[in-house]
């Protein structure tokens, strides 16, 4: 057995001995421990990828652009929009985001895209996450972590059973999704670790998975301690129920659970979360509202779960490309070009809309169909990585985002 295996096993054992009573609950979510435990001073970055091409013209509807309502017809969000300034509103479901923007903890970029995004979801998502040539198979967020190598290692975590490309690469990262707990101290995990001793893929994956389980179970233990006197504790919902589903409640809990991992001392500094279901070709209004409500609650759960740590956290919400300026024949929209990115965090510098607005005048539409891009998404990524995570400028221009010198970091974000 490796020494690291023993370390996982013994820490799991001691926690389990402390609070055997909690074990029957599974990983229940209200349980992430007291806010005071947030590790101070460690800067955190959360990237949320909206898959399927989220409609920026609905996320931050350009209510002041006279061309908007005629192009979008039934889909235009005008009176219903939450007020921002005269030019833009906010989708009515994005209440948390709207509140954060109101208190200077949120900004948005209404016309961003990757260069040469194309209109294929899958190529564009790869491009968004890899941001380098075809011969590169790692993601930019992993390469950014690699560039920070020296000193305290940065921990990466993806949420969900399938690893997103953006976090794949030379730096080993963790992944987690709600579900039943594994007995980390049982024989089987240790025996399997022995079988994986020489396996370069499965060995590290299992070791990291077990470590995350120990963190999760430590939180479970804390909750059991906190709620020992609370009669309803034994009936607390299991994670697999409370965290799954599309409801606002489930999203809030998931955000809170992710915050729990980030608060841990050796927890995640860099988190990637993917949300799908944004490819709204038909009957867009209802489907998009549900997904944006989910996003909003996830962000709310994350913010409240981080407590004071929110001051050290930056959240960036992006999508692979936008959607057509015009409504299509099935009350939806087709693949477009620019969309909206959201930037949130407790330590943002003041400032308004990020980047220029190209307007929706017919002559300004890209290929006479899409909102044009005025801002290279890489400039936004670079601005956040440089100011918030202290990533080296030269690494940003060369290894992390190759050949991107023409897309300088946006300054003054954090």
């Amino acid at each position, binding site marked *: 057995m490796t020494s690291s295996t023993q370390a996982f096993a013994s820490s799991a054992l001691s926690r389990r001995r402390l609070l055997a009573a909690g074990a029957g609950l599974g990983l229940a979510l209200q349980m992430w421990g007291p806010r005071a435990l947030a590790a101070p001073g460690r800067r955190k970055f959360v990237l949320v990828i909206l898959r399927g091409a989220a409609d920026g013209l609905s996320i931050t509807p350009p209510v002041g652009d006279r061309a908007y309502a005629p192009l979008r017809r*039934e889909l235009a969000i005008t009176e219903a929009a939450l007020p921002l300034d005269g030019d833009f509103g906010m989708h009515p479901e994005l209440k948390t985001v709207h509140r954060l923007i109101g208190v200077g903890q949120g900004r948005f970029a209404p016309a961003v895209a990757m260069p040469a995004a194309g209109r294929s979801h*899958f190529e564009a998502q790869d491009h968004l996450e890899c941001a380098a040539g075809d011969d590169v198979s790692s993601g930019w967020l992993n390469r950014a972590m690699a560039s920070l190598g020296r000193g305290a290692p940065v921990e990466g975590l993806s949420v969900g*059973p399938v690893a997103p490309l953006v976090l794949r690469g030379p730096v080993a990262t963790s992944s987690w*999704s709600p579900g*039943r707990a594994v007995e980390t101290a049982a024989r089987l995990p240790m*025996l399997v670790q022995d079988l994986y001793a020489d396996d370069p893929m499965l060995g590290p994956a299992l070791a990291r998975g077990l470590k995350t389980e120990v963190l999760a179970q430590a939180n479970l233990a804390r909750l059991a301690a906190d709620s020992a006197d609370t009669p309803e504790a034994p009936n607390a919902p299991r994670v697999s129920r409370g965290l799954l589903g599309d409801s606002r409640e489930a999203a809030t809990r998931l955000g809170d659970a992710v915050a729990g991992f980030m608060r841990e001392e050796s927890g995640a500094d860099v988190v990637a979360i993917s949300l799908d279901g944004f490819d709204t070709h038909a009957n867009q209004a209802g489907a998009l509202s549900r997904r944006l409500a989910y996003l909003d609650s996830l962000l709310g759960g994350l913010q409240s779960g981080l407590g004071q740590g929110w001051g050290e956290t930056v959240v960036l919400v992006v999508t692979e490309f936008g959607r057509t300026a015009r409504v299509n024949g099935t009350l939806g929209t*087709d693949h477009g070009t620019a969309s909206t990115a959201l930037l949130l965090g407790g330590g943002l510098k003041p400032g308004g809309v990020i980047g220029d607005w190209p307007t929706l005048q017919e002559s300004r539409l890209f290929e006479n169909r899409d909102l044009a891009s005025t801002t290279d998404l890489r400039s936004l990524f670079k601005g956040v990585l440089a100011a918030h995570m202290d990533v080296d400028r030269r690494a940003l221009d060369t290894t992390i985002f190759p050949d991107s010198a023409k897309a300088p970091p946006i300054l003054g974000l954090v």
Partner: protein
Amino acid sequence: MALPDRELQAAIAATRFGLGARPGEIAAARGDPQAFLLAQTRRMDASGPVRALPRERAEALQTFRQAQAAFLEANQRQDRKALDLRPELNTARSVLRDQIAADVLERAARGATTEAGFAERWALFWANHFSVGAGNFVRTATIGPYEAAAIRPHVFGRFADLLVAAETHPAMLIYLDQNGSVGPDSPLAQRMARGKATQRQVGLNENLAREILELHTVGVDGGYTQADVTEFARALTGLTFRGFNAPTEQVGETYFRQIAHQPGPRSVMGVTYEVEGEAQALAILNDLAARPQTARFISRKIARHFVADDPPPALVARLEAAWRKTDGALDQVAAALVTSCEAWAPEPAKFKTPYEFMVSSWRAVGAAPRKPADLAMLTAMGHRPFYAPSPEGWPEEAAAWATPDGVIKRLVWTQDYAPRAIGAADPSKIAVEALGARLRPATAAAVARAESRAEGFALLLMSPEFQRR
């Protein structure tokens, strides 16, 4: 490149090409492993044409739609009758839900029990190539029939036939929004523009056209432009199916709705299509099937699925050559795969997906899933059957699945499954049956040393070589 010895070939035949060895399967393949696989490429599921939607499904869908409409209508009027209508709607919904669950279970059980593991893997590859993901009830209820009627009967036939069957099945027409796509200059659009009753604008939806080009035929580098997508979408207008108000025996039948079709010739990828109506879309589909880009794109995808995430170029070239020589005769492409020495490399380069892992775990002991709950863990593993995340289908590469969370979830499932499945069997014997010459000494030793049958079987399932193929 030389083939490995026959013992190893037999193990590879059952585990890499097939869905994992059932007891006795490796022994059956040992005589001639390639012939063992080639014999499966002639198996067909259906002897005659299969209905797009079986009668029982069409009835359930009709009942559900009627109950839903009646309820919504009463509810809208705030009529108390709505309360009385709700139980009927709930019943209709649960009938459909049970049918969908039975579809999923039937497929998983087929994977677990079939003697033609290679044929089943080949069919699953094509179902994923022409992926249709679940959504609302109606859509999800079409996926099982889609695989049965549009995919399985054609997977060893001509690619062009498979393509047309897949793109014209109601499941695909619903999934990629083809149903509501109307030619802007079609008689239907003109009629609606004249009518004042509706403010709704009808028009094109280019989703199906784009995904056919990008995902199903020539691939994203296939040399098409946005203009080609739009032209193709115009050609596809009118392609629809008989809806749920039609007589039950017609529900789900594909038909061409001439009045929704955009009139005029179309130009797609440099070819002008003067033919009108339904023939226009079919001509374009047939031309796309015959394009060399299609042969190249899909040959590489087959090699990626069966052999390695980064497949040997020589293997891709062989598949492509077979495809082009036979105009996409898929049994011949399958034969080229099976007879290519590059496909038999001793090292297992593919990491099993969660579905493949569970199916092979059932096969190892000759078991099968019996109830929907037996598949529940697939949802937590991110691989719920019928719920592919996008039209691109499920991820293929190990990097997507071999995550810390993914490995933990396999361990959790194995801890639960192994004690229930092993019974009185000897895990060391099961290990030899399941992996044959692929069983490594370290795993054999760990299985033999285990403190219980269940632990030994669990170690086999979690072993590096069982997790791969």
